[in-house]
Every structure is written in C-alpha cells, then in structure tokens.
C-alpha cells in the first residue's frame, strides 16, 4: 500500500509536468490549427538556459526559474512571428514539417553548444532533502516543489483565461478571429503572445524537470511524442482534457513501471502450459513479458485506440 501512495505522488509529478507542456501546446493548436512539433524543444531549451543561468552565470536556481522561461518565451514569439507566420501561407502540412525541422535544428544547436552528453544540472541544495516518508519510502522536497509550481501555474492560467479581459479576448480570438479583429483587437499580436506564453510554459517545465529527468539533447524527443499523445487523448484544444489526459498518462506510465507483473500469470490462469524449454520456444516473448516492459508503449496504444474509436479525444469538441 505504501508503494501505491508513492506511485500516486510520482505519477502526479509526471502528469503535472506533462500538463505544463500539453496546456501550451493545446492552446497553440486551438489558435493556429497546427500541432507544434517543436514544443518539447522549447522545454529542452528551458532546461539548458536554466543550467547556463543558474550554474555557469551563477544566478542560482530561482534566477534560472525566472529568467530562462522569459528568454524561451521571447524566442518562441520570434519564431511564430518570423517563421511560422511565413510558412502558414503554404498550408498545414508544410507548417507541421517546419515545426518538425525546427525540432531537429534545436537539437543540433543544443548539441553544438552543450555537447552530446547529459549536463550537470541538479536540483538546488535547499530543496535536496527528504520532506516526509510513506512507510520506507522518502519523498524529496523537490517533488513537492514541482507539484506546487505546476499547480500554481495551472491556477494562474485558468484565472487569466476565464476571469480577465485579456483571457476573454484570447478565448474569443480562438473561436472567431475575424470578428475579434473587426472589433479592433490585434489578433496576430494575440496569437504571437499566446505562442510566446505557451513556449514559456514549456520552458518552465524544462527548468524544473531538467534536474529530475536529466538534461540531455534527446530530452525533447523523448518527452515530445508523449506530449502529443497527451493532447490527442485529451481532445485537441481542450484545456481540461489536456489535464485529465496528462494525469492519466502520468499514472499509467508510473504504475506500469513500478509493478513487475508477469504475463505468464495470465497465461497460466487460462490453463495454458508453460513450454518446457522457454528459450527455444517461439512464444518465449509472450511468456517472459512483464508490465514494465510494455509500460513505455501503453500511451501510444491508448492514442491509436482513441484516434480510431473516438477521434475527438476524451473531452475535445472537434475532430482532430
């Protein structure tokens, strides 16, 4: 039972981290109608900039947490203004390909500046202690810190989107851009702002996830496809769907990795007989399969199933 609660917390940390990426991505999708393949690249840039600011320049972890997302957001806005807006006229597929190329380019640029290997970006000393423990398992303060930061951002985002004037303009511009423009608002500016804020959120996620998950050039592609899965499962354009799917996928992957459930138990329960010499049998993979092995692919199976049977996702209003 202790393990269960620890996994609940770990899954929550990962799920909220996913949500910081998927919330920005899903907002950007709602307004531009295109999936930003490079979204996770901004997450990676957040981690690397934070490393540079906190460790090399020496502003400390908090300095990185504040400055890095701002730089990432400005970079994101610039890319929307000078890159995406230009490619937009060619159509959706070139747009998707552009963001894909951007993701490749960012990875190469990061390799150029910081090298191939994982860099020494760690959680700050003052958060590196065990806050409390469940049974034998200690929970580090940094995990709780990650949860708090993500909750804070989600609350702030929800407040701005639903309670403020800017949020109303954004929401209106997502659905009726032409009408909002006719009312005198600068809609391209709103789009650029949303893109900048979305990428800055990804940057925040990078800053706080870098120490926990490792900061290396492949981190964008590792997490990037999972983020896609998340927003497709949650329903494209739905913020609440993104939250639900993020938590769902966070818990699925965490629990699958933690419980060493063997599939031979199921096969034996069906009355099948285990082959005498398992390593010569053609079915050896089926008999030796364990849950942690298939854990990483569960989100993809979930996404394909959702796309086939329920194309608008868990809470989406429109089809992809």
């Amino acid at each position, binding site marked *: 039972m202790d393990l269960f609660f620890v996994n609940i917390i770990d899954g929550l940390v990962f799920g909220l981290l996913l949500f910081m990426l998927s919330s920005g991505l899903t907002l950007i999708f709602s307004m531009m109608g295109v999936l930003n393949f490079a979204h996770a690249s901004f997450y990676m840039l957040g981690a690397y900039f934070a490393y540079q600011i906190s460790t090399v320049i020496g502003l400390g972890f908090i300095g990185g947490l504040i400055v890095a997302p701002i730089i990432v957001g400005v970079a994101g806005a610039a890319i929307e203004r000078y890159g995406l807006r230009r490619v937009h006229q060619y159509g959706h597929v070139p747009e998707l390909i552009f963001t894909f190329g951007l993701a490749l380019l960012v990875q190469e640029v990061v390799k150029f500046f910081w090298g191939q290997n994982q860099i020494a970006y760690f959680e700050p000393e003052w958060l590196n202690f065990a806050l409390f423990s469940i049974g034998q398992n200690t929970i580090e303060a940094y995990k709780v810190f990650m949860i708090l930061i993500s909750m804070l951002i989600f609350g702030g985002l929800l407040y701005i989107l639903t309670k403020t004037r800017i949020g109303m303009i954004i929401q209106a511009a997502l659905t009726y851009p032409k009408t909002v423009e006719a009312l005198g608002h600068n809609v391209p500016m709103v789009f650029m702002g949303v893109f900048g804020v979305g990428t800055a959120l990804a940057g925040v996620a990078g800053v706080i996830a870098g120490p926990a998950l490792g900061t290396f050039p492949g981190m964008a592609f590792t997490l990037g496809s999972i983020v896609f899965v998340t927003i497709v499962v949650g329903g494209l354009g739905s913020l609440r769907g993104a939250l639900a799917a993020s938590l769902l996928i966070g818990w699925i992957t965490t629990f699958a990795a933690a419980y060493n459930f063997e599939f031979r138990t199921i096969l034996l329960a069906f009355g099948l007989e285990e082959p005498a010499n398992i390593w010569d049998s053609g079915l050896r993979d089926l008999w030796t399969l364990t849950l942690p092995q298939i854990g990483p692919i569960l989100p993809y199976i979930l996404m394909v199933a959702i*796309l086939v049977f329920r194309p608008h996702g868990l809470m989406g209003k429109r089809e992809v």
Partner: protein
Amino acid sequence: MSNASTNSRILFGQPVSVLLPWIIAAIILLILPVFLGSRSQLTILSQMGITIVFALAYNMLLGQGGMLSFGHAVYMGLGSFMCLHVMNATWFGALPLPLLPLIGGFFGLIFAFIIGSFSTRKAGTVFAMISLGIGELFAALVLIVTVFFGGEEGISGYRDEGLPFFGIEFISNLEVYYLISIWMFVAVVLMYLFSRTPVGRMANAVRDNPERAEFLGYSARWVRFASFTVSGFFCGVAGGLSAILFEIATETDLNVTASGAILLITFLGGVGFFWGPIIGAIVFTLLATVLGLQTHLWELYLGVVFVGVVMFFPAGLSGIIMSHVPALKTGKLGTLVMPYITCVLPGVIGGLGIAALVEMSFHVRSGAADEHEMTLFWIDFSTHNVLPWVVPLVIAVVGVGLAVRNAPAFKAAWDNASTLPEAA
C-alpha cells in the same frame, strides 16, 4: 499536328522524347561502376538506390496523396527483417536472391494493408498522429518481441547462401550494385506508371479537394487506402534491398528517427515533382556519407538547410530547378548568369565562411586542450593565431553583405527573365 512533327520517332508505342530520360538513366546506372568502382563507392551508390525507392514510395503519400506520415520506416524495416528471416531459413538455398525483395514487398504490403485499414480514414493531422503512434509502437516492439526482431543486436544473415542466379552468387559489391540498380529501375518505373493510373490521379484529386472527389463518386478513404498499401509494398521492396546490401536489420532501421529522415529527404528534394525525391535521396546520401566524414556537425548544417528550404523554397530542390523553366522558355536564361554571379555566389561563399567559423569554434571547445592544429578546406592552420579567425570572418561579412546588397537586382532580373515581354 505540330506535336507529331517534333516527336516523329516512335519507340514501344511512345515518342522517343518521353522515353529518353529513362534510357539515359538506365545507361548512367549501367556505366557508373566504371567511374566509381571501389567498394565504398559502390556501397554508397547502392545505398542511394535504396533511399531513392524508399523516398519515392514515401512521396506516394506525402506528395501525391497529401498524407504526412511520421512512421513510414516501419514498413521498410519490417520488409527488411522479414527478408533476413528468409535468408536464415533452411529453404533459402532454393530461392534466387533477386526474388527476395519481392517477399519484403509483400510483407510491407500486408502490414500497410492492416494499419492503413484504420489510419487512412482521415488525412491531415489524424493520419500524421496515428502514423507517429504506430512508429513509436513498432520501435518499442523491436526490443520486446525478440523472436522476430532479435532485440538490440537485430537480425543478421548471409546473402550468398541463396540459389545461384545464372551462376551469380552476389558475393562482390559490383553484383549487388547491379542487382539493386535493376530493382530500383523497375520500382521507379512501376511507381511512375502508378502515378499515371486512374488511382494515382485520384490520389491527387483527393489530396487537393477530398470533398469534391467524394461528390464525383470516389471514396476518398479508399483512394488513400490504395495509395497507402501500394506505398507499403515499395517500402518493403526497399527494405528487402537494404537486407541484401547490409545483411543486417536493427531497431535503427524502423524507429522514428529513420521515419523523420525519409520525410526530410523527400521534402528536401521536393514533393511537387515525381523525380523530386530522387534528387533529395542523392543529395542526402552524398551529404551523409561525404560530408559526414569531413565534419561532426553535418546534421547541424542539414537542419539549417532543411528549415531554410521549408521557409523559403517549400517546393524543394526540384522546385528550384523547375523555376528556371519559364526563363528557359522565354530564352532569357542567359540574362540570369550575371545576377547569379553577383548575388548567389557571394552568398554561398559567405555561408562557407560562416561554416568555417562554426567549425573552428567547435574545434576549440570540443578538442583537446593542447590541440590547436586543424585542417579546413585543405588548409592547415592553428586555431591560436588571429589570422585564421579574421579571414573567414571577412569572407562571411563581405559575402553575405554582397548577397544582400545585390538581392533586389537579382529579383528584378529574375522577374524579367520569367515573364514574356509585353506585346508591342
């Protein structure tokens, strides 16, 4: 009438001018080994041929069908794995090696048939996302289903254990080169002919306006499904050829990186023309093999070039080539020579200067502390002197500066050459 007078010679029921490019291509393939006959050169050429088949099969979806796939290496990889299992089977001794790609093709076709049955229901983002999911799924399955995929070390076999084909056992690289070239030629011809069939034409219609195609009585879904299945077949053929050439298949053959690479190749070459991906495959293979030996940073340059192409020349290299056709038709191609020399050439040289600076700073930071000697563009120098830094910097600034200064003149000359003179 006028057409008949210019193309009076008929061969196989076609005017010679239609067949001429194919005949020239066949002759080039035939005599290439005379000039590029070393082992490594033949391997690069064979690799190029495989990439061409794969890229054209991919363009059947992207260019001709408007479907963006992020997991297309799956079908090539599965064909490759299947062929290696055939190579390891006891009855391989009774099978002539030239027939092996056919098995890979059918295996690719079967999987494309199964997966396409649900993934081609929609084009656009749904299709792209399903293909990405399938791609990730199979890449992960490689490490789980070790019976078929052999885990991390993959599956390997020996191509020379097949039934000798008219006495040829395909031990030497030259024999393999000719085998792959012939297969490539046949596959390219077949794919070209497919694009001319009613199904191939309908794929274009469905790409441009699915709704209208539906109103004409065609099921957009079935047209997409047909293209997808045929594309899967040719991907499998490419996989079989790769099994013959490399005699090994691993996870890297079908993961998402491989799928991304083929997207890059196809788009770089240009999706608008049938032969665009061929250019892309040739350029990419040359870059990867030749430039890859010269610098560690070739992927960085590739990324820059790719993003640049998507932003400024979405029609790709073939689009750039074909944009000269109007100037050729008006007979003013000659007037573009000077603008090219004053604008594009300095730009390219300036770009090389920037690349030199990038290479040098990379060398300084990643090399050993006491290692200052480096060679760039066949010149040896020390990175601790000032002069080697100043020279490329000046070249870069002057080159790019000239290019920017002369860009308006280039554009004016370009517009002038591409339009017919006003009727007086």
